[in-house]
């Protein structure tokens, strides 16, 4: 054969390989149509199952420990201010307070840092009982308008915040209109802490979803003022708090990034927070919180993941042991024929 192969021209070899391929293909077609393709038929034998449970359990527990550790290393300060920041006389009628523009919304508070907080320290506002995920709310935006401005003004989805006095609104819709407008500033002693409010939104959002040439037009000019106003001279792509706000939350309780403090805070430091309590959560009795938090690779403070991993890993190992016990006490030889149904009846009868 080899001699032949050497003497023959390459064309022949090619033809050979072609026919080989063909025969392979026809073999495949045959096996396919006759349903006899080579197949792997794994069998869940007890040793296999036990070792799978055991191994997965062994993998899970360390993951859980690492995750739990990461979560525990996060320092978090949560300060609920929606009640405290309402002056005493208005406590019984918070709604009147928030709706009255003549009352100063300024509010200060000192916070003690319980533990060393490493920069960057993230500042969040957290709203409660606020349904950003309501269908009416979610739909009330016009993405094309956000990117291209007035060129795309088919803002039917934005109704009723689509136009004002017959002029279109940019950015239109309920989401933009209800933009969160509480503001925070921090100082340690007498020194102001710098709050970096750049780069809090996703890069892609800034670059691709909110137009660089799109400026707010006719915004918050209506009879009803929702939330914050926007500087009509700054393009939407730079209005990062709007961009963050426009990412509607999944749940009625949510945090949104406000900014970063890019200095370390030491334990027992006292920082004072100066905030403007503008946003109306009083009509639906939602709470407002200010959150300062560090982060790890896992994100924020989130013990659940680690605990879940550890407990599932433990239960896997437990199941593995139960199986092992059952199997040792009551072994069924592999492929034991006495378990075949036709072999049962004579035994039982």
């Amino acid at each position, binding site marked *: 054969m080899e001699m032949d192969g050497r003497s023959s021209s390459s064309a022949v070899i090619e033809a050979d390989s072609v026919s080989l391929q063909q025969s392979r293909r026809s073999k495949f077609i045959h096996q396919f*149509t*006759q349903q*006899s393709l080579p*197949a792997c*038929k*794994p*069998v*869940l*034998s007890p040793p296999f199952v036990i070792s*799978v449970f055991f191994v997965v359990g062994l993998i899970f527990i360390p*993951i859980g420990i690492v995750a739990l550790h990461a979560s525990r290393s996060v320092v978090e300060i949560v300060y609920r201010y929606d009640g405290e920041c309402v002056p005493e006389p208005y406590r019984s009628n918070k709604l009147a307070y928030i709706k009255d523009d003549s009352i100063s919304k300024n509010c200060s508070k000192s916070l003690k840092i319980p533990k060393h907080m490493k920069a960057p320290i993230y500042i*969040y506002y*957290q709203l409660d009982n606020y*349904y*950003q*995920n*309501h*269908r*009416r*709310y979610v739909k009330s935006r016009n*993405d*094309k308008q*956000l*990117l291209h401005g007035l060129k795309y003004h088919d803002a039917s989805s934005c*109704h*009723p915040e689509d136009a004002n006095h017959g002029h279109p609104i940019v950015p239109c819709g*309920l989401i933009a*209109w209800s933009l969160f407008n509480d503001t925070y500033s921090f100082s340690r002693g007498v020194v102001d802490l710098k709050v970096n409010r750049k780069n809090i939104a996703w890069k*892609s959002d800034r670059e691709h*979803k909110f137009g660089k040439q799109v400026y707010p037009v006719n915004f918050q000019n209506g009879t009803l003022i929702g939330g914050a106003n926007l500087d009509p001279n700054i393009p939407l792509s730079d209005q990062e708090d709007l961009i963050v706000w426009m990412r*509607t939350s*999944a*749940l*009625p309780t*949510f*945090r949104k990034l406000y900014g*970063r403090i890019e200095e370390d805070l030491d334990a027992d430091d006292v920082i004072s927070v100066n905030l403007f309590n503008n946003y109306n959560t009083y009509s*639906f009795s939602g709470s407002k919180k200010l959150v300062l*938090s560090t*982060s*790890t*690779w896992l*994100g924020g*403070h*989130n013990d*659940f*993941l680690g605990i*879940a*991993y550890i407990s*599932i890993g433990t239960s*896997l190992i437990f*199941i593995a042991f139960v*199986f092992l016990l059952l199997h040792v006490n009551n072994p069924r030889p*592999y*492929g*034991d*024929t006495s*378990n*075949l149904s*036709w072999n049962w009846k004579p035994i039982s009868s």
Partner: protein
Amino acid sequence: MAGGRIRAKLRRSNLYTFACHRPHPTEEDKTDEIEGPGYSRIVHCNKPHIHEIKPLKYCTNYISTTKYNFLTFLPKAIFEQFRRVANLYFLLAAALSLTPVSPFGPMSMIAPLAFVVGLSMAKEALEDWRRFIQDMKVNLRKASVHKEGGVFGLKPWMKLRVGDIVKVEKDQFFPADLLLLSSSYEDGICYVETMNLDGETNLKVKRALEVTLSLDDDPTFEGFDATIRCEDPNPNLYTFVGKLDYNSRVHPLDPNQILLRDSKLRNTAYVYGVVIFTGHDSKVMQNATKSPSKRSRIEKQMDKIIYILFSFLVFISFISGVGFIVKTKNDLPHWWYLQVPDREGLFDPNKPLQSAFYHLVTALMLYGYLIPISLYVSIEVVKVLQAIFINQDLNMYDEESGTPAQARTSNLNEELGQVDTILSDKTGTLTCNQMDFLKCSIAGTAYGTRASDVELAAAKQMVMDMDGQGQNGNGNFSEKNGHEFAGPEIQLETVITSKDEDAINNKNPIKGFSFEDSRLMNGNWFKEPNENNILLFFRILSLCHTAIPEQNQETGVFTYEAESPDEGAFLVAAREFGFEFCKRTQSSVFVREKYPSSQEPTEREFKVLALLDFTSKRKRMSVIIRDEKDQILLLCKGADSIIFDRLSKNGRMYEEATRKHLNEYGEAGLRTLALAYKKLSEEEYSTWNDEFTKAKTSFGADREANLERVSDLMEKDLILVGATAVEDKLQKGVPQCIDKLAQAGLKIWVLTGDKMETAINIGFACSLLRQGMRQICISSNLDAIVQDCRQAAKEDILQQITNGTEMIKVEKDPHAAFALIIDGKTLTYALEDDMKHHFLNLAIECASVICCRVSPKQKALVTRLVKEGTGKITLAIGDGANDVGMIQEADIGVGISGCEGMQAVMASDFAIAEFQFLERLLVVHGHWCYKRIAQMICYFFYKNIAFGLTIFYFEAFAGFSGQSVYDDWYMLLFNVVLTSLPVISLGVFEQDVDSEVCLQFPALYQQGPKNLFFDWQRIFGWMANGLYTSLVIFFLNIVIFYDQAFRLEGQTADMVAVGTAMMTCVIWAVNVQIALTMSHFTWIQHFLISGSITMWYLFLLVYGEMAYSLRVNAFRVLIEILAPAPIYWSTTLLVTVLCNLPYLAHISFQRSFKPLDHHIIQEIKYSRKDIEDGHMWSRERSKARQKTKIGFTARVDAKIRQLKGRLQKKYSTMSTCHHPIGQQQT
């Protein structure tokens, strides 16, 4: 046909005594009834042009069995599609998706619906197109039609018109219902095979009117003119009323002159006829019923699940609605950021009920994922693919005829795996309707060494079993002794059979003759001691018949046209023995007899004095002949019981030996006839003949009775010569197939139009009956019962049934088997409402049931009785038009294709070329398809519950506003791309065990009829699994992504991120789940499952990069937002493991402690124990048979028991072994 037509015209009526006597002189008064409504048809013979104008314009001969035509297809097919409730529901949903109520875009609802409906309609169109092609094949067949001036020309069938004169030649089908005018026989007789109409194999005689006999040549039709007035088209096959106005005289017509469409001209060179009923007016078309659409049990059960799920859907929508009202009314006015009410009034706190109504609709659509439209698509696709596999199976491909198996509808694939009772036709299904002369007993000596199929297989089986036992050494009697005794006998049989097998291979088979015994062949019979009897035996074979010889002009070999295939086999046998029947004239039969003494055959003439033909009542036929020595002989052949009753005292010399042989032949599954003769003196004959002639020429009702009486007088005091044994050739592999099917726990009923003896013989041949089985024969002696005593007859039958039931109850022996044999007439009573349950109860107790002489209608009724009475799944298999009713009635109808008639196949759901393929169709494909579909549907519900419920949970967190956490496209693609292919691969490729094991362990089949894989427990188990999975996926994700940052950069998760993470978990969980469900992975499954998961990430990448104007929110969700977050990946892992943990624990627990049969076999196969430990394997294989009382194995077991009993007796007389007799049973 070419070489044949050399015989002179015969008057066949002279040959017959019973069947074809001339009609009585015309009774003019009878024609009066052909007036008024119901008898309006007028046919102007030979003037078809008259029938082209109204009012005589009857329908053309074009037939169409299609459902649609080009114009009606679209509206009709669409209407059909939306008659399905599910489709209507989806249509409604699609329509609503165009309104603002819809929670998602319209495309996601309309596109899948269009796909499903389009696919189903394409399937309909294809099936209808096939029907059209089939119709056109028939419509374009050519018929020879009188054109003008006595010239005949060919015309396609569809162009035939009423009034046309057609000439039909031998072995052609009649193109329409014809009035027979004349035939190639002088007396206008012709033979018709009506297999396609009623399934009877014996030929029927039709005869023309005396007045039209002269029209027997083409030119005579030149001026032919006549008018027929007759009944309107009706479906009654056996009646016809009409009159022929010819030469200004009126002649009444009866069914005897009518040739029906789809029957076939046999044994007659040609006939002329006038077309009376064309196309859809013809009786056979009038009989055609629309085939009912069948649905499998699984599908019906699935409907119930759908209803449950739909109720559940309505329930959660209602909950959601209530939640919505509460939220909208109480909270919404305070949520200033929503600015309610909105324009559309969807969220109007002032009109909460109106908004709630809108919301209910939204919710129904949103949670509609519980009832996935894709389930229907996937099932449709899977079934079509399964059907392709069935069609492609080379093991069900008949090489001789080149016909593959054909799944004509794909709706019933899984039903094949749940069959409980098989109702089989006999002729053409179990047998090939070919008789082979195999053995004979002459003068008490048995001749013929070749074994019948039954014997062969039995011996083989026995040897195999004995071998197995010997090796295992667990015989009840000690091994050594057992072998000493059992050995020789078994071996002897093996030797004989194996020799025979060689012989079959070596010799050129002669059709109808497989006799082998050198003592009789090649003239050796002359040397036998009883050569006179042998001579007589051969003469009876060659003389006592009604056949006509036909010589092939090239080879000079005679072939015979006989009324029944037995007769043909006898003549072939006689020819081979040297008694060649070569010519029949009006009064004589010529036989070329070859004696060993002389080289040249001598042609002898035997004058036929009288012929007493065969009727099912008489069960015998005789001829009276005068040979060349002027000796008058009566030669008689008939059923053994009849003949033995009629023997003379000195004619019983060989009775005992012959009886013994007959029993053996019966046991070997052969059809037996006894032969006898009687010498007559001249006076004896002439006195009898006077009486006979008188009876023959008499008219009136008692003519037949008279004839019978006179014949009876003659056929007595006979002398027994011998007996013949003809093998009704079973189709290849039938006994083995029946054996296997019986082992798989299937019950087999035979329903045949044939007579009882034939049916019983076949019962023996297929091992449905065996010696030692108690036969409960239920028959009514209708002769004895006067017509008005119906009640008495019924009571009699009821009594018989009760007796039978009692007998079974009383029986203690566990090995006792009963067979129920019932005939058609009795069945008419037994099937009446008050009796049928008694009958059914008895029938169920019996190991085998044979119904003989049943009409097509009765076949269908019996099928319905079994189907409805037992509630189990029935399968009917048949090949002829007479089986159509049964095929349509049964849950599954199987047609035998490859034969001439297509009716059975056309009506069937599956068509196979041979009966033996049924085993593979059921045990392999049925088993697989059942499990596949069952698993697939369960998984589908699991998957959609797991997915759909997460949407519902989210509502509680979104103020019941109808917002979905997932992107529209995720939801659309979930069922279409992301999870559809693995489940389809489960439905198409899954095998619990491979096909060989399926065949080796027929008991595995019982998992289907027991419905182990689609019972409610399992279904609810899967649903609970779905519920669990949905809870794990939703709440774990919600808790993990609750309010905290999920990345190092401090960002929190928004709805898109949460939805995408959750969806990732869904995709992983359900795909891992299906991998755990499968037990058979080819690279296709590997590819599809991992491909589905990969597809999700690919989709996210592509979708994320795609034009952001499309859907902005998911922009770069994977690469920018989720992928860099470790928490995303670790959540996926955690959720996937937790979702599948209970299932994995459950299946491994079940496998370890409550294994099912296929688990063990998988393990044995996996560890290759079957190869290492062959004994164990074969032992288990033989144990895996269901306890059965029919089939070879049962027969062999019985034989072994018997044999052992005998051995035991011998043995115990010799030694002191105390093993009880016949205890061992394998």
